[in-house]
């Protein structure tokens, strides 16, 4: 079970003077249960890419397989694909439209043609997953706080019971607490329900903390596809693309330049702290594992 892209290419304005490659020969395979970070500066093609994965955009050339089936084959059920690959756009709260939270979350499953009881069951579950209890059901989505609105919008996609969840900068504009709440919920969805998550983000710190694989896009091409640790080792190449590694990477690299042989794959504050302390003979008693939110 996977998403597989083969030579995926997308050209805007093909045949005109404004012809521009948004994607050029992108290849990858995403297996079930991965937590993938997708980064690239504005205009690198990452937004175009995720819209291909649920069939909203069609590739100019190349193929895309979902669970082994070619989604561009004649007669392929795009609507079914969209409910299996859930896509949460940037500022998803801008898509809310119903009079109350509960009805809004019901919109997706209702479009799937499910029975009323099933629709409501799905909505209840989805709202629970994003941490909104029954007291929110009857409220107008427009009177909630920014972070709550966003969670309702994410629930609206989760209610379609997707196997893969793609989120385009789900934390944009939120404060640190709101950001940690959303990312924590994604982490739980991934851990407890084995959901495949693709997280588009500008924050290397967030990627370092949550993702186990990192894809970097630049000028429509895939330039890196590896664990975050390995990708961040190439911080110089990242900088040449207008990106950067987490601050910790820079600290570690600077220490190594000073002749201190610290492991260069450390990417979170906790890892760096523990490594430094153990090098000077102090132990913290805490584990070196990634800290979970």
């Amino acid at each position, binding site marked *: 079970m996977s998403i597989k892209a083969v030579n995926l290419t997308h050209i805007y304005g093909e045949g005109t003077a404004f012809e521009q490659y948004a994607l050029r020969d992108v290849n990858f395979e995403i297996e079930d249960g991965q937590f993938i970070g997708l980064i690239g*500066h*504005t205009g690198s093609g990452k937004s175009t890419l995720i819209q291909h994965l649920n069939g909203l955009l069609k590739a100019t050339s190349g193929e895309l397989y979902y669970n082994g089936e070619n989604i561009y084959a004649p007669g392929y059920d795009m609507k079914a694909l969209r409910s299996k690959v859930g896509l949460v756009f940037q500022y998803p709260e801008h898509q809310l439209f119903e009079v109350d939270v509960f009805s809004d979350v019901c919109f997706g499953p209702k479009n799937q043609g499910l029975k009323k009881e099933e629709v409501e069951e799905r909505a209840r579950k989805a709202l629970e997953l994003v941490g909104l209890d029954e007291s929110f059901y009857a409220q107008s989505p427009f009177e909630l*706080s*920014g*972070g709550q609105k966003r969670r309702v919008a994410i629930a609206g996609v989760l209610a379609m019971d997707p196997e893969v969840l793609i989120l385009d900068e789900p934390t*944009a*504009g*939120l*404060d*640190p*607490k*709101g950001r940690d709440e959303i990312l924590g919920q994604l982490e739980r969805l991934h851990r407890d329900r084995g959901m495949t998550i693709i997280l588009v983000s*500008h924050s290397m*710190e967030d990627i370092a903390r949550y993702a186990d694989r990192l894809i970097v896009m630049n000028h429509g091409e895939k330039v890196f596809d590896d664990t975050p640790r390995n990708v961040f080792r190439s911080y110089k190449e990242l900088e040449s693309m*207008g990106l*950067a590694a*987490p*601050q*910790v990477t*820079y*600290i570690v690299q*600077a*220490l190594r330049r*000073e*002749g*201190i042989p610290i492991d260069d794959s450390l990417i979170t*504050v906790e890892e*760096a*702290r523990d490594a*430094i*302390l153990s*090098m*000077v*003979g*102090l132990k*913290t008693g805490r584990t070196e594992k990634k800290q979970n939110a």
Partner: protein
Amino acid sequence: MGIIKAVNLIFDYIKRDEDEQIEGVDRAIDGLSLDIQEGSFVAILGHNGSGKSTFAKQVNGILAPTEGTVLISGMDTRDEGHIWDIRKTAGMVFQNPDNQIIGNIVEEDVGFGPENLGVPTEEIWKRVDESLEAVGMTAYRLKSPNKLSGGQKQRVAIAGVMAMRPKCIILDEPTAMLDPNGRKEVIRTVHELNRREKITVLLITHYMEEVVDADRVIVMDDGKLVMDGTPREIFSRVRELKQYRLDVPQVTELAYELAEAGLPVSRGILTMDELLSQLVPYMKEHRICR
């Protein structure tokens, strides 16, 4: 007395039902007193709903105090007769780059403020030229705002305020909707204005890395001022900041954690070089050879 002075400021958002009856009162600012010196770069931090944006609107006279006073260059914001002078003195840049650009061409948008102030045509051109130069957007003066990146749009918005020749600029989360490069671009521009043009800057944000170079950092929570000091002082209180739902840059957090564990590293570390200059000698000396 400073350019911005708030005394026991209280502001309530009043919710009314259909019959104009008061349904609920939401206290956004709760007894805030503050004095900001002319020419300084002050950052106000706080999570969403801490009252920081409401305060910004008080300074510009968009909202009037429920109780207490706000004085801008000695002018009371509740004094209707001074409202335009106050807005001219304390210009405001908002969060959403799209929703504050009025003109269809960059230079015309920058000219919008001076036009409203009744500045003569030649003087408008002079101010527009200077303002665009100050934010580094001269090359884009004839472009449509829709063709610019988020960071560029915010720089145009800043130029629009500069053209009114303010003494002070208030920026209400100007980088919240931008990508990292756009964010840096805007913060760099604001620092340059502060340094070169001696403009007082009041930067409201929740990104901690943007306030490292400020002269003074104020933290708001629940409508109150809860922390006030230099970045170094504020950043040395990591636990407290986290309690106010704020974050510190990774370098500051690492330094804090190491200091907590007993390493001789100071707590209010702001830059990587600072951390390295303290950490490297210590590690070279105390490293356990494996």
